[in-house]
């Protein structure tokens, strides 16, 4: 029975089911209270968690997002049921941490991870197009490194307890989300009262949706970065059929729920600074490719015991702190007295993207095995 299910989840129908489920559930979460065109965003939600823990001081983006907790614990559950939970470690964890930091800086310049880029497009935000092109270009550069022997090396089996660190961290976050203890005045644990951080679906619903997606994604290996990488590298369209399903089902759900608004201007939590949308996601895409997975995939892997992916996740959370504390994140467009003010990023943000790209290139050029 488990073998049959495994073969189904490994099939094209399995990945389409997962992508379609994410599309429908993300759009539904938006209706239930999550921010517009941000039904699910792994980067934004990890950023919100960083804020709730006091790792940055951007008041409008602080909330312990139960979806993230659900992704990890759903993957843990799936891995346990199908006997795939396996603690592993030791594949250049510090490099993965750095890649996580840089990936978050790039994603927050664009204002979203690949999942949100797809969901923004499905909601009619055409600014997502330059972001997605940037993502593909970044991944294409990463593929060239892979072809020339880039690798972070083998991981090794380790103590089962190591594999439980990230799932247990998520259990701790869930307790903090439920009880919201106040450790310091105006510090952790603190939730936004205005802005995107204040907008959220009921905790239990977010958690259950996260668990379902985590379970499905662990079984099917859903990965947005991998979908583009596999097409470029091998002409393999397996994973991208799931990504296509995500867009189609999210678009359909948005149309049904009246959440579709096409255009470039004043899209929710987005800016129309096209060059930086492109470059921010190019940086993120390259970092994902070098680390072997998009932010969602890194969460699912960390749920099944891969502590190297856990280090990437921690890098992203720290990266969110750096991004907001140093003013690197993109500022959304806004309408003031009927006049459109284009957002975009600060000079420091531009420097950060440039430096991030250079660091990724150095990693790609210097970490190669020759056969």
């Amino acid at each position, binding site marked *: 029975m488990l073998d049959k299910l*495994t073969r189904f989840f*490994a099939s094209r129908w399995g990945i389409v089911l997962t992508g379609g489920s994410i599309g429908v559930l993300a759009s539904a979460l938006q209706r239930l209270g999550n921010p517009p065109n941000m039904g699910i965003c792994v980067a934004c939600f990890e950023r919100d968690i960083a804020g709730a823990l006091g790792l940055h001081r951007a008041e409008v983006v602080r909330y312990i997002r139960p979806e993230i907790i659900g992704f990890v614990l759903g993957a843990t559950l799936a891995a346990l049921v*199908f006997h*795939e939970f*396996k603690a*592993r470690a030791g*594949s250049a964890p510090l490099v993965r941490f750095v890649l996580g930091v840089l990936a978050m800086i790039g994603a927050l310049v664009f204002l979203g991870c690949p999942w949100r880029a797809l969901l923004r497009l499905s909601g009619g935000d055409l600014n997502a197009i330059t972001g997605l092109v940037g993502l593909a270009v970044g991944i294409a550069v990463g593929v060239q490194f*892979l*072809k020339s022997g880039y*690798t972070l*090396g*083998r*991981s*090794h*089996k380790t103590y089962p307890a190591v594999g439980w660190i990230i799932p247990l961290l998520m259990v701790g976050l869930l307790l903090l989300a439920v009880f919201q203890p106040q450790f310091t005045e105006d510090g952790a644990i603190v939730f936004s009262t205005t802005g995107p951080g204040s907008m959220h679906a009921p905790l239990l619903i977010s958690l259950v949706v996260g668990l379902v997606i985590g379970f499905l994604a662990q079984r099917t*290996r859903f990965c947005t970065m*991998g979908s583009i*990488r*596999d097409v470029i*590298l*091998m002409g*393999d369209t*397996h994973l991208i059929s799931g990504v296509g399903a995500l867009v189609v089902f999210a678009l359909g759900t948005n149309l049904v729920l009246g959440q579709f608004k096409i255009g470039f201007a004043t899209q929710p939590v987005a800016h129309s600074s096209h060059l930086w949308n492109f470059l921010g996601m190019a940086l993120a895409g390259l970092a994902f490719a070098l680390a*072997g997975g998009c932010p969602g995939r890194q969460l699912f892997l960390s749920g099944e015991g891969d502590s190297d992916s856990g280090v990437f996740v921690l890098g992203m959370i720290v990266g969110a702190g750096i991004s907001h504390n140093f003013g690197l994140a993109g500022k959304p467009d806004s309408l003031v007295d009927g006049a459109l003010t284009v957002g975009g990023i600060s000079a420091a943000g531009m420097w950060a993207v440039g430096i991030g790209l250079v660091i990724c290139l150095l990693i790609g050029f210097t970490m190669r095995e020759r*056969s």
Partner: protein
Amino acid sequence: MSVIVDARGYSCPEPVMQMRAAEQQGKFPIEVLVETVTSRENVRRAAEMLGLKVKVESIGEDEYKLILER
């Protein structure tokens, strides 16, 4: 004499790339060793896309051997 590709510990797509590099050498059978179900399924799918026959064996705890033949 089999060609052995030891991809244990590498994460995808590296096991698939190592398998494809061995396939291009044209010597069969190829034995690919992996240690996650993800790698097993990815190598299996990629090999089937190349028109190869794939046989999977479990070896030890959580390790798999894929035997690929033309």
